[in-house]
């Protein structure tokens, strides 16, 4: 009981110091609040901008012009069909953005309601070409939708009737849309959240441990009646609070952006998902706080602590790239047991609206386990003279 009372005194004192530090306020609270919305806004804006450019005009070439698909595409203002001798050279040089290859008997097959071959080639190294593929695919889907829903008696009737202009923005809901922003969203947000949960507590952890050694305040503190365990717990609570607040401000920034964003590209997050996200953020912050404090306690000075903490922050963002193409419906037990990777997996799962409560429980239990291990190691180190005094 006495230990927790002392830990509370230390925690409250550390909080007071944090609140009075403007730098902590700006980097720990204001920046995470602004950073995620700013990045999402830029990504959303640039994606829309690129899409807009591609939507204005897409140069394509076709291997076979004597068919209904050519008539359909030719009727669209956005699509310009041009003649090229070598489609690969034209794609590489950017003369065309896509090359469409279709079965020669496409119209006969359409009349008979049979499948036909249709292949769209594009330049993978060109953003313009990739974006054009989206547009061409949307028109392809519109074409498929028309031929599936209307009866065409003859080839001539098909070629004539299908040459209509389609407004994709007003197209029926059945037309699929390729969503590039959500790809960025599912990668950026977990990364930013993990980074801020980690970095939010890093400064505080270094300050309350290594910083205390450097300023000469540790020795007077050790000479008081406070036990070493209460000192570590008090400092862990303060570090965790900062990490949690930083993480929650990141979530708050995300939530705020989703609320005010008019973008249809951004996914909807339900209240339940948001609560799950907050819960996970709290535990992730606790984990990083304990890890950062462990590093801070080991370090001789604030600078040395920063030297160790910076690579930790960077390493934490690396698994985000591995999970870029991760299908949230295929997250296995192995992914849920690997530190950091499991945090990213569960955040992605929550953001995709497919949160699995068993997965959530497994990750939270692992996080609690990591916190206990870090706390145990920190306490052991803090009781060692060679670490506290770095003799």
């Amino acid at each position, binding site marked *: 009981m006495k230990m927790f009372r002392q830990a509370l*005194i230390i925690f409250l*004192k550390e909080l007071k110091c944090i609140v009075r530090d403007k730098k902590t306020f700006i980097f720990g609270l204001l920046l995470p609040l602004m950073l995620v919305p700013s990045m999402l806004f830029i990504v959303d804006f640039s994606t829309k901008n690129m899409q807009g450019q591609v939507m204005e005009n897409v140069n394509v070439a076709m291997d076979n012009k004597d068919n209904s698909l050519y008539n359909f595409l030719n009727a669209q203002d956005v699509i310009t069909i041009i003649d090229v001798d070598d489609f690969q050279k034209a794609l590489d040089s950017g003369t065309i953005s896509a090359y469409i290859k279709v079965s020669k008997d496409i119209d006969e097959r359409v009349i008979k309601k049979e499948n036909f071959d249709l292949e769209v080639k594009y330049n993978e190294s060109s953003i313009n070409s990739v974006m054009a593929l989206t547009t061409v695919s949307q028109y392809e889907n519109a074409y498929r939708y028309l031929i599936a829903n209307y009866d065409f008696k003859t080839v001539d009737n098909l070629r004539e009737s299908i040459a209509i202009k389609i407004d994709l923005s007003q197209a029926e809901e059945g037309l699929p849309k390729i969503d590039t922003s959500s790809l960025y969203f599912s990668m950026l947000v977990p990364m930013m959240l993990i980074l801020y949960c980690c970095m939010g507590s890093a400064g505080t952890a270094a300050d309350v441990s290594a910083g205390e050694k450097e*300023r000469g305040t540790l020795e*007077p503190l050790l000479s*008081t*009646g406070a036990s070493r365990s209460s000192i570590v717990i008090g400092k862990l609570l303060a570090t965790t609070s900062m990490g949690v607040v930083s993480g929650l401000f990141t979530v708050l920034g995300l939530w705020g952006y989703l609320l005010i964003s008019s973008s249809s590209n951004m996914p909807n997050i339900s209240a339940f998902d948001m609560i799950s996200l907050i819960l996970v953020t709290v535990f992730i912050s606790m984990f990083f706080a304990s890890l950062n404090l462990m590093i801070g306690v080991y370090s001789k000075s604030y600078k040395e602590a920063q030297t160790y903490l910076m690579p930790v922050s960077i390493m934490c963002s690396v698994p985000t790239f591995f999970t870029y193409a991760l299908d949230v419906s295929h997250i296995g037990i192995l992914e849920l047991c690997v530190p950091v990777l499991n945090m990213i997996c569960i955040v992605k799962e929550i953001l995709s609206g497919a949160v699995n409560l068993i997965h959530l429980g497994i990750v939270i239990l692992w996080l609690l386990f990591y916190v206990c291990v870090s706390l145990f190691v920190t306490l052991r180190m803090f009781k060692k003279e060679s670490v506290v005094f770095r003799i």
Partner: protein
Amino acid sequence: MISVINISKRFGKTDALTDVSFDVNNGEIVGLLGENGAGKSTLLRIISTMLSPTSGTAIVNGYNVIENPKDVRKNVGILFGSEVGLYERLTARENIEYFARLNGMNKKQCDDRVNYLIERFSFADYADKQVGSFSKGMKQKIAIARSIVHDPSVMLFDEPDSGLDFRAARTVFDFMEACKKEGKSIIFSSHSMESIKNYSDRMVVIHKGHIVKCFDVKSYREQYTEREINDILFNLVCDGDENV
């Protein structure tokens, strides 16, 4: 009352202290004189229970530093010279209150004691200002107040005049004299011969972790001139190995 009994301390392969023994009576100031790295701070850290001795022990007011470290800490106040160790974002009052609370005082006891110390050391004018902007002398006063907030009967001063101007140093030494009058046992470490000669009753000269001389300052002053005492001390520290 402090009894240092055969204390040795080893850091890896280095012997920081070897078989150090001496006593400090109530109302007595014992000065620890030695060069940088002689082992003075290590000894004070052992007495204040921050470090454990490799062998030997110290008894502070009847409490053993190994067996009863918490009781020892209740009886010991420590003051550092070069680094006052204050929290710059807390006010002077909050700094002292923090240590009072950690030493087990309740709110009422804490308020009474802090107000008394603010009055005693005359810093009511800036008691509620953050200490970050204070001069070294002002900080030293607050550090002194903090070190005695739990009213310890033993005071340890680790190079208290280091880095201080004459006025701030005088504040520290006046406080040390006041502690002596209150009957506290005091150990005061320094590498300044003048400070040790002027303020200690007994002097323990420590060199490379060994006690090379322990003598009564008053009797030495009666036997030798200032210059002779300085020469004796200089030779002890410079040729300490020969005197062991």
